[in-house]
């Protein structure tokens, strides 16, 4: 082998111009991360979300009072009385309940999304890879689930299963998968025709190895965006369910069920410390996540960047 000189980087770089440079995110998770952090809103969202996560994690250390301890009801916020955000009907410290409630929201968000991403990935991957009647069946199932008036079905499911944190996570997890399944299926359909997958078959790789180690890692990027927005949707849904009394049950504090009291006009007009803080927390949580989702979307789709 006479001409087998070791090629250096600069050499024959011209040939990289042959087919259109792949728009794919060639192995560049690192590059993605860099672009994400340069995205200002995404960075702000990440910081806010990290603070919320820390708050949820260290709730017992941060909360000034026991969130279940009963005292004098409806004390207004004061710097001197110890109750920075006042107390509720049962005299429980609003600030402490607010801090503890972050645990509910975050666990619903992350738990539900983890469940449905897992289901959706499996369904989408199998449907896209095997095609045929499996694919048709799976796609009809996504049609069915996507035609559900989402919140209504969840309300019925939770009322049947019994309203609790676990059941809310389960119901959201069982209903959220179709959009992920469709994303994954579409990705698998295009990636399975790629030559590196054909090469994998030629190399004698098993189907699960090809599907899960070679195809899936190349189709997960759009799911990341979907899952991020999904966390926000799950948090809003939990808050709505709890607000309607069909979610997390008192005495456990959730931002949604702290707002139940605000349905009485005397609280709404006379005791704003009971409903303004939890409302703000919900909005902050949702906005921080949506900022991250926006950032991720911009980062992954260079076309749509502003």
């Amino acid at each position: 082998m006479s001409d087998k000189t070791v090629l250096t980087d600069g050499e024959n770089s011209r040939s990289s111009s042959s087919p259109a440079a792949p728009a794919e995110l060639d192995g560049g998770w690192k590059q993605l991360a860099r672009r994400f952090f340069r995205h200002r809103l995404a960075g702000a969202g990440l910081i806010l979300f990290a603070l919320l996560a820390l708050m949820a994690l260290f709730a017992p250390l941060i909360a000034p009072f026991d969130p279940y301890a009963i005292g004098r009801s409806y004390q207004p916020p004061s710097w001197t009385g110890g109750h920075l955000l006042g107390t509720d009907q049962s005299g429980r410290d609003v600030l402490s309940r607010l801090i503890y409630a972050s645990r509910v929201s975050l666990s619903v968000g992350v738990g539900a999304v983890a469940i449905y991403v897992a289901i959706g990935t499996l369904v989408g991957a199998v449907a896209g890879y095997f095609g045929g009647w499996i694919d048709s069946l799976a796609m009809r199932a996504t049609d069915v689930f996507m035609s559900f008036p989402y919140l209504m079905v969840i309300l019925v499911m939770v009322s049947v299963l019994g309203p609790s944190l676990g059941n809310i996570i389960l119901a959201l997890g069982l209903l959220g998968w179709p959009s992920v399944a469709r994303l994954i299926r579409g990705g698998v359909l295009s990636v399975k025709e790629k030559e590196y997958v054909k090469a994998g078959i030629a190399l004698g790789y098993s189907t699960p190895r090809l599907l899960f180690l070679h195809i899936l890692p190349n189709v997960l990027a759009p799911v990341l965006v979907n899952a991020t927005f999904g966390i926000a949707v799950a948090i809003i849904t939990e808050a709505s369910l709890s607000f309607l009394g069909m979610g997390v049950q008192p005495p456990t504090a959730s931002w949604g069920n702290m707002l139940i009291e605000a349905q009485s006009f005397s609280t709404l007009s006379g005791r704003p410390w009971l409903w303004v803080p939890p409302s703000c927390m919900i909005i902050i949580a949702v906005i921080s996540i949506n900022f991250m989702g926006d950032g991720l979307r911009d980062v992954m789709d260079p076309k749509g960047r502003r």
Partner: protein
Amino acid sequence: MLNYLLRRILIAIPVLAGITLFNFLIINMAPGNPVEMFINPSMSQADIDLRKEQLGIDDPVFIQYFRWLGNMLQGDFGYSYSSYEPVAKVVGARIGPTLILMGSSLLLAYIIAVPIGILSARKQYSWLDYSATSFSFLGVSIPNFILGLGGIYLFALTWKLFPTGGMYTLGKEKTFGDLLHHLIMPALILATASAGSMVRYVRSSVLEVLGQDYLRTARAKGLSEFVVINKHALRNAMIPIITVVGLDVPLLFGGAVITEQVFGWPGMGQLMIQSIGSRDYPTLMAINLIAAVAVLAANLLTDIAYAAADPAIKYGKR
């Protein structure tokens, strides 16, 4: 085209069957035997058995499902467990108010979102664009019930501009003006989420269309900017916008449940919360079914509108 339509309708049938089955199965998982509702302690065991047989409770689940489906196809939704009236009548009375609320908020969403989206795209990176984008962001991010509470606090309790809830003023004659007065706040609030996402869609699809060659040609022909935007850009930008409606309807139903509850609007959403409280399963099934049919119909209409708006769409393959 006809072929395409026929195919879409044929696809909708198994989807509808799936929806009814899922709905039925969930509710069958419910604890508590509905017969208990119709039984009183003074009944003998024979009476109870007879009652059970009449209700078909002891039959296998799938037989119950087909019986329920068959009855429903004949318009028989059973009897409400709480009011003992026919479900069709109980739910029927609630459809109108919900349609009024959802319809007007969809309309509002369009009236708000389309001009804002277009302006935002025309004046990209202006303060108007930034505030429109922020508005749409907030609209998507703030849950309906928080907006509702805030709205009641400000506009009803503090400034007393609008009533706190209901559809008509109690004890007064039901006039259109009174209805409108009650409708404005809930409809606006229900519209925010849809409007928020719609602004985004309109903005991005107009931006995309504005960059196309044929607009440059239209301008070069000396057409006025107004004509260019309204006749050429908008028509093409409408196509992606149409699809948003189909996606929005399921969300709108969810939003309606919450908005109706917050504002005491006597629609299906409020009935749903009441029925959950009283474990009134026949009513719940009927509500879910009606909502699902509405969603399917909206999707079908969207597809048709989409096909009509875009002559390039292929009907054959999918």
